[in-house]
C-alpha cells in the first residue's frame, strides 16, 4: 500500500533579549551554574514576575515575519506540572490566547513552492537544565536557563516529507535570524524542534495516530528522524500493528528513537490565567512600529539580488539564507563592478576558509571592502587569479588592503614583453628535449615550458603573454 506521511513541527526559539522574561537576570549562555539566578527565576516564595517588554515585541516581530495575525488581547497562563527543572512547578506560557495566529511560510522543496501554515506563536519561559552527577547517581540542576524567554511556533500538519520539513525549518531559522529575534544557535539550544508525525494510506482522509519526536538539535537530525520515524510507522502498519500515541526521543548517534512516555497518561496541565501578571492589549500603532522594524526578509532580498546584482537564482538563494552572509555580500557587492565574482568568492574561498577555521561570517577578518578590492585587482589584471588566492591568505591574517600586500610582496602581474621574452629564450635554451617534443607534434610540452617560465617569475607572469611568446619563439625554431 502507498502511504502518506503527515508532519507538523513545534519549534522553541530562545529570544535574543539581554534579560530573562520575568526578571533582570542575564540570558547569557555558558555561565557558572546557578550564578544567573534571582528570587523570581528560581521560584523563591513571594517572588513575582514582571514581563520583559522586548519579549512581546520580538514575538510579534516573528509573527509578522511569518505572516501571522496579531492578537488584540492576550494574557499569560500557568501550565502546571512537576519537574525538577521547573522551579515554580508551573511554566508561565500562553494557553488560549497566543500572541500570533494563522500565519504561513512559503518553502521550496522538491522543485515546488508550498505554503506551510503556522497555527500559532506564543511566549513562554524556558526551564533550567538537568545534568547527571559524575560523583553520584544523582541529577544536578542549574537554573541559569530558567526564565530565558522562548517563543513556541506550532505549524499545521502540512508537511509531507523530510525535504519539506528541512526546508521549512531552515526557512523559519532564516526568518528568526533576519528579524534578529533569536540567534538560532542550535548547539547552544537556542532553537529546538519537536516533530509530530503520522502516516496514513494515500486514500485515507483522516489522520493516523501520531508520535512526537523530541531532542532534534540540527536540521540534519530532523531530516533523519523524520525518515526513520515514517519508516518505523509504515512498517508497524504493514505488520498490522497499531501505532502508539507517544513521545519519543531521537538519538542521532545511534540513528534510532525510543519511547519516553505514552500520551495516554498525558498530563492535565490545569491551565489558568496567571493572576500575578496582567493582560495585554496590542494596538495597531504598536504593531505598525514593530512592523517598521522588520528588515527585508530573505525572499524579497533574494529577488532583489537577482535583479540588482544580476546574480543567478542559485547564488542569490544561497547567499540570502543567512542574513550576516547576505549583509557581507551586499556591502562587498555594492562597490564592485563584478558582483557575480564576489558571490563566487564568497561561496567558494570565503566559506571554505571560515569552515576550516570554524568561524562564523560575523567574525571574518577580511572586510567586505577589501574583498571587493581584491576582485578589482584581478579584474584589472594587476594580479592573477592564482596570486589572488595567495593575497587572500595574507589578508586573512593581516586584513591589510590587497594592493598594499601586492606591493609589499611584489605580486603584481609581470606583463612586460621584453622581460618575458628573455625568460622564454632562457627556458627554450635550457629545455632542448621539450622543444624537440613540440617539434615532433607533442603540443602538451608547451604547457611544461609555460610552467618553467611561470616558475621563474614566481607565478607572476601574465600566462597569456607567456603562452603567446613561447609559441612564437618555438615556431621560429622550426
Amino acid at each position, binding site marked *: 500500500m502507498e502511504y502518506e506521511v503527515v508532519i507538523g513541527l513545534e519549534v522553541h526559539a530562545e529570544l535574543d533579549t539581554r534579560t530573562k522574561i520575568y526578571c533582570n537576570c542575564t540570558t547569557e549562555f555558558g555561565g557558572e551554574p546557578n550564578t544567573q539566578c534571582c528570587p523570581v527565576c528560581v521560584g523563591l516564595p513571594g517572588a513575582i514576575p514582571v514581563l520583559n517588554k522586548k519579549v512581546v515585541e520580538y514575538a510579534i516581530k516573528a509573527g509578522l515575519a511569518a505572516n501571522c495575525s496579531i492578537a488584540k488581547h492576550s494574557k499569560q497562563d500557568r501550565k502546571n506540572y512537576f519537574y525538577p527543572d521547573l522551579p515554580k512547578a508551573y511554566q508561565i506560557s500562553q494557553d488560549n490566547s497566543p500572541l500570533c495566529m494563522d500565519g504561513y511560510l512559503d518553502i521550496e522543496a522538491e522543485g515546488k513552492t508550498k505554503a506551510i501554515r503556522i497555527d500559532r506563536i506564543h511566549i513562554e519561559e524556558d526551564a533550567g537544565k538537568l545534568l547527571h552527577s559524575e560523583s*553520584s547517581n544523582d541529577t544536578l540542576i542549574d537554573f541559569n536557563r530558567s526564565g530565558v524567554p522562548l517563543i513556541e511556533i506550532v505549524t499545521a500538519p502540512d508537511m509531507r516529507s523530510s525535504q519539506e520539513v528541512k526546508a521549512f525549518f531552515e526557512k523559519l531559522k532564516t526568518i528568526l535570524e533576519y528579524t534578529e529575534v533569536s540567534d538560532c544557535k542550535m548547539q547552544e539550544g537556542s532553537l529546538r524542534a519537536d516533530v509530530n508525525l503520522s502516516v496514513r494510506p494515500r486514500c485515507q482522509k483522516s489522520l493516523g495516530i501520531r508520535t512526537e519526536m523530541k531532542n532534534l538539535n540540527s536540521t540534519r537530525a530532523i531530516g533523519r528522524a523524520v525518515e526513520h520515524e515514517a519508516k518505523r510507522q509504515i512498517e508497524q502498519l504493514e505488520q498490522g500493528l497499531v501505532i502508539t500515541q507517544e513521545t519519543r526521543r531521537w538519538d542521532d548517534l545511534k540513528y534510532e528513537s525510543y519511547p519516553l512516555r505514552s500520551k495516554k497518561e498525558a498530563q492535565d496541565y490545569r491551565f489558568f490565567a496567571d493572576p500575578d501578571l496582567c493582560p495585554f492589549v496590542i494596538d495597531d500603532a504598536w504593531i505598525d512600529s514593530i512592523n517598521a522594524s522588520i528588515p527585508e526578509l530573505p525572499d524579497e532580498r533574494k529577488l532583489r539580488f537577482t535583479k540588482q546584482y544580476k546574480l543567478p537564482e542559485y547564488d542569490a538563494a544561497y547567499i540570502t539564507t543567512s542574513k550576516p552572509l547576505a549583509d557581507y555580500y551586499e556591502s562587498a557587492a555594492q562597490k564592485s563592478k563584478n558582483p557575480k565574482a564576489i558571490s563566487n568568492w564568497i561561496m567558494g574561498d570565503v566559506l571554505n576558509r571560515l569552515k576550516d577555521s570554524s568561524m562564523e561570517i560575523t567574525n571574518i577578518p577580511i572586510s567586505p571592502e577589501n574583498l571587493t578590492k581584491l576582485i578589482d585587482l584581478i579584474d584589472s589584471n594587476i594580479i592573477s587569479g592564482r596570486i589572488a588566492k595567495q593575497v587572500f591568505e595574507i589578508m586573512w591574517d593581516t586584513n591589510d588592503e590587497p594592493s598594499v600586500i601586492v606591493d609589499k610582496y611584489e605580486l603584481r602581474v609581470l606583463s612586460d614583453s621584453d622581460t618575458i621574452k628573455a625568460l622564454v629564450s632562457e627556458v627554450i635554451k635550457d629545455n632542448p628535449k621539450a622543444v624537440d617534443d613540440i617539434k615532433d607534434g607533442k603540443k602538451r610540452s608547451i604547457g611544461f615550458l609555460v610552467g618553467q617560465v611561470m616558475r621563474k617569475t614566481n607565478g607572476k607572469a601574465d600566462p597569456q603573454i607567456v603562452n603567446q611568446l613561447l609559441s612564437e619563439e618555438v615556431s621560429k625554431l622550426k
Partner: protein
Amino acid sequence: MKVNEDDIRQVAQVSKLALTEDEVKYMMEDLQASFQYVADKLSALDTEHVCDMDQVTTNKNVFRDDVCKDSLEREEILRNASEKENGYFKVPKVMEGN
C-alpha cells in the same frame, strides 16, 4: 457530584501529595461535603450571559525594560537547599520522561 476515594487518590497523585489511607477517607468525606455545598450554590446562579473574569487586576500592559541587574550570589541561591553539589541543586536520578 460524588467524589470517591479514587478521585482523591488521583488528585493526590497529580498534586504529588502522599496521603495515608485515613487521610484519603477523611479528605473524601470532607471534599464531598464541600462540593455539595459549592455545586448547590453555583448551579442556582445563572451565568449564561456573563463573561469570564480571567484576572481581577485592572492593570494592562505592565512591562519591564530589558536591562540587566545583578543576580543573587550563588551561595544565597543555594543556601536553603537540602542537597547540593558543586554549585548545583541535587535530586535523585531523573529518569527521562517521568
